[in-house]
């Protein structure tokens, strides 16, 4: 099958579940026989690689030039996946010959009778606060939320340093070695280019100075206000400030071993359907729903929806002019109709997003009775944003992802960008909090505890909101930002955001491998 140009290469790579560096694609396209090179590359590439990098290509090109020809490969099989990893719905299959043994395009595949053994399934919810909102918006509620955050995240840090309370540090003699655990209260640069970070604990605040020539000065770029942190360093002579020697994040242990399912079962992780918007991609959705009925999707038994079921009302000024369905209840009814198209035996879990008709402040409780009634067809689990759902032993932290905007805005591009949304998710995992910074974009509703803390390390972290597809692993935790089902809006066009619309990432719960199905 001839491959022409970069687009084909990228398409082929994504169809096999790979992301690719730009250079790698260029190198591939420039190869004498891009086809062969690509096949070879897919053969050679290490199993754990998710992104095709230029070094992989170089290795593959060397191999091609040495062998002169490329052996046929079956990448999906190599990766222990009997199904080909793409469906374009209407196009002919684009993967290699070997992949066509299971035709996936809608016309070609007969809907199958799905048989599932309900006994094998398990689904548990943790951290759902729907109906548990006890905060009444008092000052004390806010204070206890932040205290709870420090308490719980601090407990992950206190074992690592010999910490002292802020009030005690200033009484220690100058030159002492000190450590502290606290929330970041303030980050500012000094006139001489150093960084002053104020940590706060339950006793007060203490300033920590990060010298601009120290190695970890780069870490300062990653800091957000109100995240929990431990610092170690040396007190200045007057004990008024401490010089940082090391910094610790609550983080996910490098050695973290995720749990997996005992059988081969898959979950589809999607979000941002935006029914009601003029840009809702109904055709793509229908292809997705149809695909779920095919043999290829036989093992997809769970559907996780990370918010923004509908486009909502009044989300931005003059939104009504861009709505296909203006009535919010009709939007949910339409959504429900679309949802009915997926197989009835899917287990569905939904959390709300910022376009949904619930409060914007996080944590967001799940939909109210009226909306639940509308969406009752598949008896979905409707839980709060964020919530953790454990599916056959695999815990999935579902969070809509509003804070990603802030992480991407505040952090340097190489650490978090819209093109690699999963990298921004890594930051949240590292901070063990889904929306650390208070007072910026993210809105907080004070509850008795901080529901936004990532108490237990999840096996999968699933977000949406930014309308970009991206996934990768951070300390073995699979982070997935599902794309969306809404084509580029005028607003997105004006700010040059090109959404990844019409993709469904499918996760093998037994291996945590991801394949991406494309329906647009």
């Amino acid at each position, binding site marked *: 099958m001839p491959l022409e140009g970069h687009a084909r290469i990228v398409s082929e790579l994504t169809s096999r579940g790979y992301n690719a560096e730009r250079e790698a694609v260029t190198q591939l396209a420039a190869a004498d026989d891009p086809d062969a090179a690509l096949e070879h590359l897919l053969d050679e590439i290490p199993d754990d690689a998710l992104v095709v990098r230029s070094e992989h290509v170089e290795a593959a090109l060397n191999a091609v030039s040495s062998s002169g020809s490329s052996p046929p490969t079956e990448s999906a099989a190599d990766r222990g996946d009997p199904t080909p990893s793409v469906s374009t719905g209407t196009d002919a299959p684009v993967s290699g010959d070997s992949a066509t043994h299971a035709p996936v395009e809608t016309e070609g595949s007969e809907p199958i009778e799905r048989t599932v053994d309900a006994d094998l399934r398990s689904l548990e919810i943790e951290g759902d606060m729907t109906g548990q909102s006890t905060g009444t918006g008092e000052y004390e509620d806010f*204070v206890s939320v932040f*205290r709870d955050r420090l308490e719980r995240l601090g407990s992950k840090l206190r074992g690592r340093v010999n910490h002292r309370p802020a009030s005690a540090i200033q009484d220690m003699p100058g030159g002492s070695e000190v450590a502290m655990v606290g929330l970041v209260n303030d980050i500012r640069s000094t006139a001489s280019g150093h960084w002053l970070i104020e940590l*706060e604990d339950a006793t007060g605040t203490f300033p920590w100075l990060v010298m601009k020539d120290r190695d970890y000065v780069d870490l300062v770029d990653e800091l957000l206000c109100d995240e929990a942190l431990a610092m170690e360093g040396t007190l200045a002579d007057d004990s008024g400030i401490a010089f940082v020697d090391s910094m610790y994040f609550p983080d996910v242990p490098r050695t973290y071993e995720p749990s997996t399912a005992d059988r081969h079962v898959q979950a589809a992780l999607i979000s941002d359907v935006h029914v009601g918007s003029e840009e809702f991609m109904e055709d793509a959705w229908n292809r997705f729903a149809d695909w779920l009925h095919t043999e290829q999707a036989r093992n997809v038994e769970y559907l996780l929806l990370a918010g923004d079921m509908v486009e*909502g*009302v*009044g989300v931005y000024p003059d939104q009504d002019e861009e709505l296909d369905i203006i009535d919010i209840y009709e939007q949910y009814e339409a959504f429900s109709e679309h949802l009915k198209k997926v197989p009835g035996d899917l287990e569905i879990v939904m959390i709300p997003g910022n376009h949904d008709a619930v409060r914007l*402040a996080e944590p967001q409780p799940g939909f109210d009775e009226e909306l639940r009634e509308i969406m009752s067809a598949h008896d979905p689990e409707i839980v709060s944003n964020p919530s953790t759902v454990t599916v056959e032993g695999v815990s999935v932290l579902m969070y809509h992802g509003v804070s990603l905007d802030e992480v991407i805005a505040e952090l340097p591009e190489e650490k978090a960008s819209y093109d690699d949304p999963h990298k921004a998710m890594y930051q949240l995992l590292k901070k063990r909090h889904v929306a650390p910074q208070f007072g910026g974009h993210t809105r907080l509703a004070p509850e008795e505890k901080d529901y936004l803390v990532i108490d237990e390390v999840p096996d999968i972290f699933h977000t949406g909101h930014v309308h970009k597809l991206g996934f990768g692993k951070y300390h073995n935790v699979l982070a997935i930002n599902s794309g969306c089902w809404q084509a580029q809006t005028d607003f997105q066009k004006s700010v040059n955001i090109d959404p990844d619309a019409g993709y469904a990432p499918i996760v093998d719960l037994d291996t945590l491998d991801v394949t991406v199905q494309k329906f647009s």
Partner: protein
Amino acid sequence: MREEDEQYFQTLESRLDEAFDVAETAKQRGGDPKPEVEIPTARDMADRVENILGIDGVAERVRELEGEMSREEAALELAEDFAEGRVGDYETKAGKVEGAVRTAVALLTEGVVAAPIEGIDKVEILENDDGTEFVNVYYAGPIRSAGGTAQALSVLVADYTRALVGIDQFKARDEEIERYAEEIALYDKETGLQYTPKDKETKFIAKHMPIMLDGEATGDEEVSGFRDLERVDTNSARGGMCLVMAEGIALKAPKIQRYTRNLDEVDWPWLQDLIDGTYYDDAGDEESEDEADDADEESADDGDDAAAEDADDGTESDEPQGPPRVDKSKKFLRDLIAGRPVFSHPCAEGGFRLRYGRARNHGFATAGVHPAAMHLVDDFLATGTQIKTERPGKAAGVVPVDSIEGPTVKLANGDVRRIDDPEDALEIRNGVEKILDLGEYLVNYGEFVENNHPLAPASYTYEWWVQDLEAAGADVQALEDDPRIDLEFPDPEEAVEWAVEYDAPLHPEYTYLWHDISVDAFCNLAAAVAEGRIEQDGDGSVNGNGDDSILVLEHDDAVADALETIVLEHRQREGEDRIEIDDWRPFVRTVGCEPRQAVADGAALEPDPDGRGEEPEREPDTDPEEPTVELERTWTDDDLSERARTWGHEAEGDNAIEAVNEVAPFEVRERSPTRIGNRMGRPEKSESRDLSPAVHTLFPIGEAGGTQRNVADAAKHAETMQDTPGIVEVQVGRQRCPDCDTETFKNRCPDCNARTEPDYRCPDCDERLEPDDAGRVECDRCEVEGTCVEPREIDVNEEFRSALESVGERENAFEILKGVKGLSSTNKVPEPIEKGILRAKHDVSTFKDGTVRYDMTDLPVTAVRASELDVDVGQLQALGYDADIHGEPLTHEDQLIELKVQDIVLSDGAAEHMIKTADFIDDLLEQYYGLEPFYKIDDRQDLVGELVFGMAPHTSAATVGRVIGFTSAAVGYAHPYFHAAKRRNCDGDEDCVMLLLDGLLNFSKSFLPDQRGGKMDAPLVMSSRIDPSEIDDEAHNMDIVRQYPREFYEATREQADPEEVDIQIAEDTLGTDGEYTGFEHTHDTTDIAMGPDLSAYKTLGSMMEKMDAQLELSRKLEAVDETDVAERVIEYHFLPDLIGNLRAFSRQETRCLDCGEKFRRMPLTGECRECGGQVNLTVHQGSVNKYMQTAIQVAEEYDCRDYTKQRLEVLERSLESIFENDKNKQSGIEDFM
């Protein structure tokens, strides 16, 4: 200048001199900061420029140059003078550049605004990377008031002077160039710019700019890249610099280029590239140019282009396809606020009808509204209320004009009446069911010139008709002279007669709004009329038909509707199944029916085919001898031409005017083709300006006076039992007596009464310092600025008691004497408490600069009557008014006189306040300065002829005015030139007056706050006489004629450019002997203070009451869609408020209730980190959901869209979710049943 004008100014100036002498004497005696009057008099702009800058010799040079060249050229000429040291006494190069730049800005702003002193902080010389020197100009926020051209030119002058004194060009570093681009984008985001250059454009300018533009940080937000630059002090946006670069250089490049071409020393070749947009590396030139143009025109009305296009369409073919109409513009409806009603939707039928003309209290951004209409809109409009309007400008001040047509209403009893008398309006107001038409809306020609708005089609009015009549060959003069004929309000029969006899269009009084009904409705109406009958109503009234006959139609909803739409007075009697029309003859003829005489008994004539034989029975009282009148329709629907049938603007056949003209025996013009939408803006204002809390004396008492800042309390205050009461530590300036070396904080030595001097010390080495020539105090050794401010213990009790004693007052002379917490001026010089005691006694409070001020909305007036000003002829004669506007000797109170340019009319409130101030001044002179009283006011008539200062915000120059009378309207009426001299127009702007001697005696620069903008709004200089060529040129666009020519009205139908029409405007008389007089008007008004004195907006209590009244009114007004109003109030007021507060709630700051310290996030300790005090939220539940229930109710009641209702529902649930405990829901009573 005419002799009488000169005399007038001399009268003003002699009174000014008189007051000045008194003030000078007083100042020498008292303990004021300066022993002389601190407001210098400027007779002309040159004086103002010199005084505002404080640079000697500028005025003389400006006068020399003024006659020879333009102001811009003079600014460059002066730059040379500065460079060569001919003007100004500067030794440093930086000083020379600074002097030149400030002078240029002052010159270009005519020495009125504060920009030259406040907008330019300093000029310094810095070093380029190659070791050469360059000039850095430091701009500040107030440079905004200079406007783009002056801003841009200041840069050019700086560069020119730089070149002349031999300093090198600025060579920007790359990161600095990038910084400019980032910063301007940031400033635009934060504050907004009129024109925002693109990054490339900014970088291009920055790269080529030969001097460095720098400035103070104005915002909190910081740039993210290009921080901590060596030569840029701040990481925030420098507002002044951004303005100069974007709205100055980038926007006004062509203007600067005009001057650079003539200068050899400076060369800005890059300007051409900037203008052409060729700063891009590649193509795309055109695009950028277009965009620059767009931005240029952004301020112009949306409708402009569209309307212009419309006009083009009209001229394309000889036969227009439809009636000329302006396009709707909805802009004025934006950001509708709860409580401020909409009077008319854009171009809506039933709304205000545009009539051209200028009333004597009109012009200069005002709108003439009939006083009856003001009452009928539930008093929401009052004299001076600002309205946001559809065209020609954006906003206007409302003035009452009763020589235009009033509103037409439908009463609950079915009467449809036009209300031309405000008294009638009040009487029938409660019975008004619907306001069918708001009446006419007077706009003067000059408004269209000023706004560069194409003329909108004129209403057919008397002024136009009478010229048509003359053109048709009638002897108008003879008709006018005929005492039996009222040409403007003729009898119906006369009107018909003239139309037929002279073949002139029908008189506007009987021309109805035929263009507002459809052709179908017209045919239907004509049929109904033909079915109608003529009755004697037996009330004996002669309804202008020569008898007491009326036209009676059968009651029919469609007919009633049509009659209401064409705004014809009639009575609907649904119960009796009749509609009665009094003035029926012109109406009947217009619909193409002919009255025919018939004999009453019916027997003599064949029964008419319509079988109206019953008529005699229904009218048993009718004299059987009298002939009855039959109405015969002379046409059928099919007679109408295709053109008439399809004539329309929005839809085919929606305009019956062509049909009317085909069937009527005379020409019928479009009565009111242009409707003007508007809504209420700000309410009018007339109130004293008080600081909050009010201040009687600028004497510091710290916290000792409590929150009231009560000096008497401070005098008794003691922190602990051990402290002496009244001892308060405050920051004040240290003064030293030059004679006996006593140290004090007062301006006179307490020991020897000599005047003291500030005692400056270096804060580091405590060396005593002397200020240099520029007034700067710097320690040479430590290179820090010296100061005389020190914390000092003051015995407030002692000061207070001795002050009371020295003015001979007792503590019970006033209720409370309020001081200030601390002083904000540089040297912190306190004011003598004595002044405060006397202010408190007369219940006046002071502004930050020591003056007593009264704010009023500005309105123009060019001719007045003694009767409306509450003065008599004698008083006016004493002020130099000898003749009325027709040149007749002034003998009677009702004669109109032309107002002199500096005479002003005070509102009643202002007069009362001025009397109090005058009493205060008299006491001050007697009891403090030991002089004779000056004003000796017994009643307010004594104020007539007294001088005041008028002064606008953001300016630094006061204009002398003279009180000529009083009005009950809550506004300040004055000559438009007086307002323009203060840099105000009358579209709702307000400014203040202060009593002359109060300003002279009590103003001191030493009190002005030591912060940016502190010198704004302070009378640093005063103009004693107005030079019409030195005022805001907006006033020059006012028309000053008695009548607009017929060609003008015809041109409006073409929607011509206003400049194409020849009507004299004020500009035409500039520089002539007539420049101070001859402001004629086209429309009179009975009184300049008709209608309500205060807008209902001010008299209604809570916001809810206002909003209820607003929505209630919207229901009544035909021209208003109440659902749209409700939607807009919810959409633009309630929802943003709810959403904004909810957002603010969930990311709010907190604040310590005790010390006021703010925290970005709630402290984990729970309490204040600074003082341990109680911390609380800044946004509470109460402020978040205060409008929730109201909004839901309004949405329900006014049937808003589901979309709006659902948005509210979603929000309501969000609020519940946040503020209610799920486990402890508020239980209703039903839970217990």
